[in-house]
């Protein structure tokens, strides 16, 4: 109880509240403009959060991403152009619903169900994370090694596409993470005599390069074209929303729970959650033939799922220090630079902070409703922002942001380099998720491996002689089997004539 009060007083601080509102507005703007994603919003926010206390820093990222995912629904319904990948699956549905004259209903459902889904996600997070953390206190370096490895393997499995390419992407991330001083023996690795590389490659320029510069390079060619005239919903926005949401309350609950679980899987985030939730809701629906014609049912569960996934991703991130998606990967990086190592100890030592984070989640999700409605009203103006002005500004922001982490121009080079690598990888269907997860998990895997091997004096069997470690090892092997089977299956499909194009 004492901890809860302490947490409440941390959250109800003027600075924290101000940060939440400002970050929500920023996320709203980034999400509503097609081509700018929630991950990009986070990457651009990080330079600013570097200078904040841990709680406002997390609050900023949580509120910006939650709002960006909701705002991404708006251009989907208005222009049939999803604002973020997480809205892609139901952009058509919302647009068609709008064509039937129910634009207010479509967007109202998006916002309301997003908020409900987000709240379900937070409830699951607050309920289960401390229990799992209690259990995780027994983990040693053996278990953490397997857990991190399992996280990476899952990331490849869920990244979709060719698992071979996912694996290579992951290995590139691991290679980048190895540059600099080895944490166990202190030897220099791959610094090529460069003084700037002694401490390794920092996270911030990598993030900005991979997620902001890469996206910028893909969107900039189309910049400057005049935006289409946007028709915004007129009259009362929330007409019929409550009724429709109540009618499909099962869908909201299913989407929320499913989204949280998918979000908790390493590598799978809001976009995968909304795809799967939409598909399942279609399968279980009494009127599946209506899907794709402007039917609100799928909209309800997918909207709930993508926001729930955001909260779900924090379960492994806070409990084990293993990110559930790219955004939490960034959160872990931010916390680590502030001297907080996410893991079960955080729950016992910084109970108030953990509870404060949960409260921030609730607050950010409740804010979705008023800000979301405001964004819908102002959507016309929001979408008319000239991209020809916006993209150059983002570029300048990226450069200054990459510079600001260490005040070093070298980091600006790294940002550019990784941006170019990112574009090449994306063009060739290499997923970027496994790369960034591996970059963050690499040091965890290696240091825990070395610690275990030193403890056991070089005996590899020590990795599987404890029951939990054995289970985790089994799961990791199972995941690899699935990845390999998936690869062979896809390879066979690609081998058949006529189908090669869809896979390659």
């Amino acid at each position, binding site marked *: 109880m004492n901890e809860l009060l302490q947490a409440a007083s941390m959250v109800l601080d003027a600075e924290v509240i101000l940060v939440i509102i400002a970050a929500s507005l920023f996320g709203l703007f980034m999400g509503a403009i097609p081509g700018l994603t929630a991950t990009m919003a986070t990457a651009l926010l990080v330079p600013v959060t570097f200078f904040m206390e841990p709680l406002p820093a997390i609050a900023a990222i949580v509120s910006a991403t939650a709002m960006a995912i909701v705002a991404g629904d708006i251009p989907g319904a208005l222009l049939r152009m999803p604002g973020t990948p997480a809205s892609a699956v139901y952009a058509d549905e919302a647009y068609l619903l709008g064509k039937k004259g129910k634009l207010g209903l479509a967007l109202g459902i998006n916002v309301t169900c997003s908020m409900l889904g987000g709240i379900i996600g937070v409830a699951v997070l607050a309920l289960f994370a401390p229990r799992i953390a209690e259990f995780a206190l027994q983990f040693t370096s053996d278990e953490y090694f397997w857990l991190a490895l399992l996280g990476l393997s899952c990331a490849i499995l869920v990244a979709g596409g060719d698992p071979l390419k996912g694996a290579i992407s992951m290995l590139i991330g691991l290679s980048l993470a190895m540059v600099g001083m080895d944490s*166990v023996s202190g030897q220099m690795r791959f610094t090529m005599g460069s003084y700037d590389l002694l401490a390794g490659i920092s996270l911030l320029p990598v993030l900005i390069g991979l997620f902001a510069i890469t996206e910028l390079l893909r969107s900039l060619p189309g910049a400057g074209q005049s935006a289409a005239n946007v028709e915004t919903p007129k009259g009362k926005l929330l007409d019929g929303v409550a009724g429709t949401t109540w009618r499909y309350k099962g869908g909201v609950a299913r989407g929320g729970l499913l989204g949280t679980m998918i979000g908790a899987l390493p590598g799978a985030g809001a976009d995968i959650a909304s795809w799967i939730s939409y598909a399942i809701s279609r399968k279980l629906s009494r009127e599946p033939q209506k899907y794709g014609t402007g039917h609100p049912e799928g909209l309800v569960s997918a909207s709930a799922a993508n926001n729930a996934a955001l909260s779900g991703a924090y379960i492994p991130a806070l409990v084990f220090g293993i990110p559930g998606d790219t955004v939490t990967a960034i959160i872990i990086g931010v916390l680590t630079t502030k001297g907080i190592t996410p893991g079960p100890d955080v729950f016992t030592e910084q109970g108030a902070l953990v509870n404060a984070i949960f409260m921030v989640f609730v607050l950010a999700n409740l804010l979705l409703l008023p800000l979301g409605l405001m964004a819908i009203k102002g959507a016309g103006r929001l979408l008319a922002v000239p991209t020809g002005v916006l993209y150059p500004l983002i570029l300048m922001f990226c450069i200054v942001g990459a510079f600001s982490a260490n005040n070093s121009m070298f980091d600006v080079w790294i940002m550019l380099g990784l941006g*170019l690598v990112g574009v090449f990888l994306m*063009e060739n269907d290499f997923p970027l998720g496994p790369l960034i997860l591996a970059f963050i998990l690499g040091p965890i895997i290696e240091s825990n491996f070395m610690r275990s091997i030193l403890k056991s004096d070089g005996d590899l069997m020590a990795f599987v002689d404890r029951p939990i470690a054995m289970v985790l090892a089994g799961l990791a092997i199972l995941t690899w089997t699935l990845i390999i089977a998936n690869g062979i299956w896809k390879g066979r499909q690609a081998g058949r004539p006529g189908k090669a194009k869809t896979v390659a």
Partner: protein
Amino acid sequence: MRTSDAISGSMAAALGAALIVASADLSPLPRQVYGAGTFPKVVGGLLLLMGGLLILKGLRQRQALVRWSGKVAGRPFLLALGAVVASVIAYVLLTPLLGFPVVAVTLLTLLFLMYHRRGWGRALLIAVMATAVIWMLFAQVLHVPLAPGLLEQVLY
């Protein structure tokens, strides 16, 4: 630009080989076979293996070596690529000499001219306003040492 899997596979394999070669002189921990070189060698080996498999896949499917696949046409993409690369290089090289305000205003004006196409006056105006906001946020609020350069006398 999309290359054949054989090409991207060879790049991955080359990276793997480089890792193995570069980690050859890393010594293991005392009285151990494992050390700083263990992980680079494992990752390098896996990159070689996966890269090799990808090369095989690319060759077997007889993919075109290099082709244009992007949704956007080639020219605008190359133009954007050139603009971004040139801006970053210009920023890194010129900021220490001329200072952030001058470089940022110049780069932004040029980029606005290129992509917003509403004339010099407006481009310059937006660039000056944007630079002032970034300066306020990063240099004043967050204390990032952006070089004032030529404007040092004016600003302080």
